[in-house]
Structures are given as structure tokens and as C-alpha cells.
């Protein structure tokens, strides 16, 4: 438990050491990560939304490659996928669009799509195409651990991080395996259900994020030994938190810095829920809440404002946590 508290506290303290080169593209470190999801190709100018969201403070962006049968998506992303496909977009056209804006993209892009689109051209070819377009991570929600080996290999060879998902019902044994094999980050599915906006964040979100972090702590020594290379690309910021002075002062060595960020997603709606989810994990993925706005006619600037509001809420929460931590340290006599 104390490990968890330290990781929590670590988040609030900006890192004093410069980031290693491999994470240099991830903007500010040591804050709760905000990762918006966008359905690619939804509109002609969809990359403008991508750039607007980046400018508004996204730490990475999940790019949904629309699939005809999005089994794990709720009504909003289904609708966005259907609309994009009806416009005639393809994986190839989307990757072309991304290649075009690549010079302006500074945050990691992670493709989110379904297994059949990966297997049709073959996983090695698919991953190579992603890498060529500058996409650095891949999430395939209908590819559980047991079926993932071939894609894991192909992704690693192409230099793409294959991020695996953990669900509230995942057993401890599987969770440990997923944590050790996931790359880039660990995706915590906040609730038993599809993507889509909800009135409240499920209580399962915090429980699951805590279980993942506990598993990461348990596996830290062996994980660190085997993880000199595991996340060469997407590499979001959680390691910086545990490498922060708070963590090292608490006696943890740099090896545990290999801990991947835990991102909480599925149904996270609005700034309050983002803060709550971000508090549970190391960051939050927001999809349907944003795509709903785009479907309703939001412009790139509108969407940027939406993301900026979430970013501001997360920053405020980070600051409050930091202040709380300082006063806690004073009272308890601990040096945090």
C-alpha cells in the first residue's frame, strides 16, 4: 500500500531530472496524462481535430481506425465509425492523412482498431504501415492475451508498442501477465461494458487501477531487468513520476522507473470524471465524450476548448494533490 501512496505523491512533484531522450516527444512530465481518442476520417478535416487536441494539451492521441463491426464500442463510436466508412475512408487513406501532418505532430499517436483489420494484410505488414506513418502504438480490443503473440512479435519488430487491456473481471494471474507483456501503457477498462458516455465513473475503475499498480510494484525488479527495451516508442510519463525525488527519497531505485503508466478509459465523460479517473490511474483516455461533440457539429476549435478544459481540471487536481501532499508531509514529519 505505501508504494501506491508514493507513486501517487510522485505524480504531484515535477521531475527534477531531464527526461531520457526516448520520451522527449511527450510534452510536460509528471502530470496526470490526458489521452483523447478520435475516430479517424470522420470528417474531411479530421486531422485538424487531431492538431487542435494536441495543442490543447493532449499527452498522446488514440487514433481510431474505423471497423465495420466495432464490437466493443457503444453507440457514439459506432456512429462515428459508420460515418467515416460511409465517407469511403480506408486504413491506407487515414495513414496517408497522418503522414501529411506528421511534421506537426509532437505527441505519440496510438492506433486503436479491431483484429480483422490487422490480420487482413498480415500483422507484420500492418504494423510496418503504422510505423511508416509515424504511429507508435497499437491497441486491438478484440485481441486478448491468449491470441496476441503473433501481433506482439510483429509490433515489436516494427517498433510499435502493442498496448494490452485489463478488465475489472481479469483474474490476478492474467493481470500480472498482461502487465508484463503490455507496451507503451497499460489500458484499464473502467467498467464492464462498451465505450460510451456514462453519468458516473464506475467504482471498478479505481479498484482496477490500484490492482494494476500493485502488480507493477510486485513485478518491478524482474520487470525492470527485462524492460531495458520494452517501451521504446510510445513511452508516456508514468516512469517519471516514480523517478521523481519523492520516489527515490522513499528508497526506491531507478529500476522501478520501468513502471508503465496506467490509463483509465471507457466511458469517461467530462472534466470531473476525468479527474476521478486520472486520480485512480496515471491518466485518462477520453473518447465518446469527444466524438459525441464532433458528431453534433463541434469544430476543431470547439473540441480543442473541450480538451483544454479537461487539461485544466487535471492540472488543478494535480496541484491540489501536490499541496495536500506538502501539508501532509509537514504534519507527519515525513519528507515526501
Amino acid at each position, binding site marked *: 500500500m505505501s508504494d501506491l501512496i508514493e507513486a501517487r505523491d510522485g505524480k504531484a512533484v515535477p521531475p527534477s531530472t531531464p527526461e531520457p531522450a526516448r520520451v522527449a516527444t511527450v510534452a510536460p512530465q509528471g502530470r496526470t496524462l490526458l489521452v483523447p481518442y478520435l475516430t479517424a476520417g470522420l470528417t474531411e478535416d479530421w486531422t485538424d481535430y487531431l492538431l487542435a487536441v494536441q495543442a490543447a494539451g493532449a499527452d498522446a492521441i488514440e487514433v481510431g481506425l474505423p471497423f465495420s463491426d466495432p464490437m466493443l464500442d457503444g453507440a457514439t463510436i459506432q456512429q462515428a465509425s459508420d460515418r467515416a466508412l460511409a465517407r469511403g475512408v480506408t486504413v491506407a487513406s487515414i495513414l496517408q492523412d497522418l503522414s501529411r501532418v506528421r511534421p506537426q505532430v509532437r505527441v505519440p499517436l496510438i492506433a486503436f482498431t479491431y483484429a480483422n483489420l490487422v490480420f487482413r494484410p498480415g500483422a507484420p505488414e500492418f504494423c510496418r504501415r503504422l510505423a511508416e506513418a509515424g504511429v507508435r502504438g497499437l491497441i486491438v480490443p478484440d485481441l486478448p492475451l491468449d491470441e496476441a503473440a503473433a501481433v506482439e512479435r510483429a509490433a515489436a519488430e516494427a517498433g510499435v508498442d502493442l498496448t494490452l487491456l485489463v478488465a475489472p473481471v481479469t483474474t490476478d494471474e492474467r493481470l500480472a501477465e498482461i502487465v508484463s507483456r503490455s507496451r507503451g501503457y497499460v489500458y484499464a477498462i473502467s467498467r464492464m*461494458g462498451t465505450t460510451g458516455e456514462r453519468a458516473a465513473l464506475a467504482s471498478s475503475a479505481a479498484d482496477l487501477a490500484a490492482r494494476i499498480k500493485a502488480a507493477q510494484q510486485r513485478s518491478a525488479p524482474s520487470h525492470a531487468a527485462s524492460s531495458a527495451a520494452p517501451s521504446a516508442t510510445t513511452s508516456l510519463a508514468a516512469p517519471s513520476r516514480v523517478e521523481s525525488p519523492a520516489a527515490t527519497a522513499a528508497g526506491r531505485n531507478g529500476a522501478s522507473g520501468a513502471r508503465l503508466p496506467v490509463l483509465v478509459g471507457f466511458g469517461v465523460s467530462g472534466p470531473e470524471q476525468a479527474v476521478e479517473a486520472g486520480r485512480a490511474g496515471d491518466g485518462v483516455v477520453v473518447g465518446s465524450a469527444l466524438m459525441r461533440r464532433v458528431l453534433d457539429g463541434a469544430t476543431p476549435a470547439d473540441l480543442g476548448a473541450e480538451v483544454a478544459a479537461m487539461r485544466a481540471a487535471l492540472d488543478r487536481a494535480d496541484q491540489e494533490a501536490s499541496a495536500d501532499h506538502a501539508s501532509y508531509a509537514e504534519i507527519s514529519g515525513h519528507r515526501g
Partner: protein
Amino acid sequence: MPTLMREPAAGRFGDFGGRFVPESLVPACDALAAAFQDAWADPAFRAELDDLLAVYAGRPTPLTPARTLSAALGVELLLKREDLAHTGSHKINNVLGQGLLARRMCKRRIIAETGAGQHGVAAATAAALLGLEATIFMGERDIERQRLNVLRMTTLGATVVPVTTGSRTLKDATNEAMRAWVADVDGAHFLLGSVGGPHPYPWMVRELQRVIGEEARAQSPYVPDVVVACVGGGSNAAGTFAGFADTAARLVGVEAAGGAAMSSGRPGVVHGARSMVLQDAEGQVAEAESIAAGLDYPGIGPEHAFLGAAGRAEYHAVKDDEVIAAVRRLARDEGIICALESAHAVAWVLREAGGPLLPAGSRIVLTLSGRGDKDMATLEATA
């Protein structure tokens, strides 16, 4: 081929099958596989199911010689009469088994997808009998063309949820049923209607339909030259084939030309399994197009993909107009109005009898998977 139509190791039939589901469904699939394995090996479970199949579903169904057609075509044609089972199709075999299993697993509710509505009606029936709630997902387009079955389902107390996304047919109803399952894995059993889906479904549903083939084998005076059945997802065919896989009989599955995953599809992953799938060059799943709602599906069960690749079974396709002609011919010649789905098997026999695929004198067992009451409006529209 020692493993032919036995329990597949890790849910794999050669290169096909597997379990391509969200992590959220993995424990439920594991639990289901374990529960079915346990139940299927339990004599008490088997006895309870056999009893229901006999006293409730009306099994065994007869094997009827099609005398007029046989004489006209120069073949010996025996019809396995699943149209005479309770609810009017072979789907009852599967739902009684899964219904008992759901109860054994202490589920309070079943979720099902349906195309023609035959599986939906069967699922609603099993739910009524066994005291379970039923939520049935059905494409809007199928609701329009299979009204009678919608009324049957609601009369049985089921909730029918229209699916308005995609092609508004079976494919989309299946997506929606799986989404509903993710949201209620503890309380609900997903009562899948065919031999597709993630492990253990292809194996479990084939085992529950095995009764068709085993009865036919025992009823037939000889081992036939050819065993033929229509194929949507492939459950009546799989159940039929299971009774003859270890004989010299040729196994023939007949698909709708507009939904012919075996002849026109490519390997792919849809609805949780790797199998043959109608899809475009980049992997978007294509929309099937068939007059028979129950065959209007772009995939096929993975064991069929395996049997086809291994050369143990062959798959052919027939067109809508051949199917309509087959319904009429069977009705006039034999006094049996079969379902549009089942008529695909009949149409293939009508087309090929006397030709190289089905030489004169061939002895044929054909599974008539269901009855045609539900299709009268469609038939009227084509008159």
C-alpha cells in the same frame, strides 16, 4: 484425422477458431467452457436434456423418404425432419442444452441474437420453459421480413430489441448481443444460436446439435453417399455432419450465394473466431445478401472452415431464385413447406441430381432444418 468433430484443443480447429473477444469476456468464456465440459460429462445433465428433447421438443424427428422427388430425380433422398421439432426448427436442440446450462450456472437471464427469428423463438421458448428472462437482438430489416417470429417471441415473454446499425441483419444483431453480454456477464448467459463465436461456442453448439446426425445415422437403412445441409453459421450442418464424419459419406454444406463465406470469403476474424469471412481488401466485413434471413450472414463457424480446408466437407452455393423454386417443388411434390434456409439444401440437390456432383442413384440424407410458415409473406412477394 483423429480429432475430426471431437472437442477442439484450446478451441482451435486447425488454423480456425480461437477466442478473439475483449478481455472483459475472457473469464466468462472460460467459465462457460468449464461448465459445459462438466455438464456434458455429467449423466444427470445428459438425462435431463434427453428427456426434454423427447417429451418437450418431440425428438426423435423422423427421417422421411421423399418418394416423388427421388423418383423424378433418379436419386434416393431421405429428409431429416427438423421442421417437425417444437418451435419449427433444429434451433430447439441448442437452446434447451444451453438453457439448462444457463440454469446450472445460476444465470437469471439469456441474451440471444437472431436472423430469421427461429433461434430467437427457440431461445424465448427455452427461457419460458426454464424460468429465465430473455432479451433477443434482431436487425430492423429482419424484424420487417419475419414479423410472425417477432410476435411469437413477444408472446413467449421475451424482449425483442431492434438493431438499427450497419446492415440491420444478423451480423449487427450479433454485435449488439455481445455488447449486451459484456455489460451483464454475471447475470446473463449469451445463448449463441450457431457454431460461430469464441470458444467454447463452436464446439458446444455442435455437440448440442449432434443429435440430428446421430439420429439420422441410426434411422438411415444405409450409410448414405452424400449428407447435405444448408449453412448459415452452420449449426444444423455441423450437427448433421457429426453423425457421419467417421463414415465414407460426402459432407456437403449449401450456402446462400449472397452469403457464401466458404466460396467467396477469406480467412478473417469476426464475432470472436477466426474463420472464413466475406470482407473487402482491407478487412471490412461485407454485408451478406440473401432472401433467407437465417443465411444472411458474412461468416461461418470455424469448424466448417477447417473441414473445408482439410477437404473433408465441400461447400456449394445456390441463388435466391433456385431457393424459391425449391420451396415450391418440395411443397407440391412432398407436401412439406420448408424454411427458405432449408430450401438451399433442397435446391442444390435439384440442381445437381444426375450431374457429376450428384450422380444418378446417389443415396442422400438431407437435413430439412426448419419449416416455412415464417416465410409465407416473402414467398407471396415473389409470386
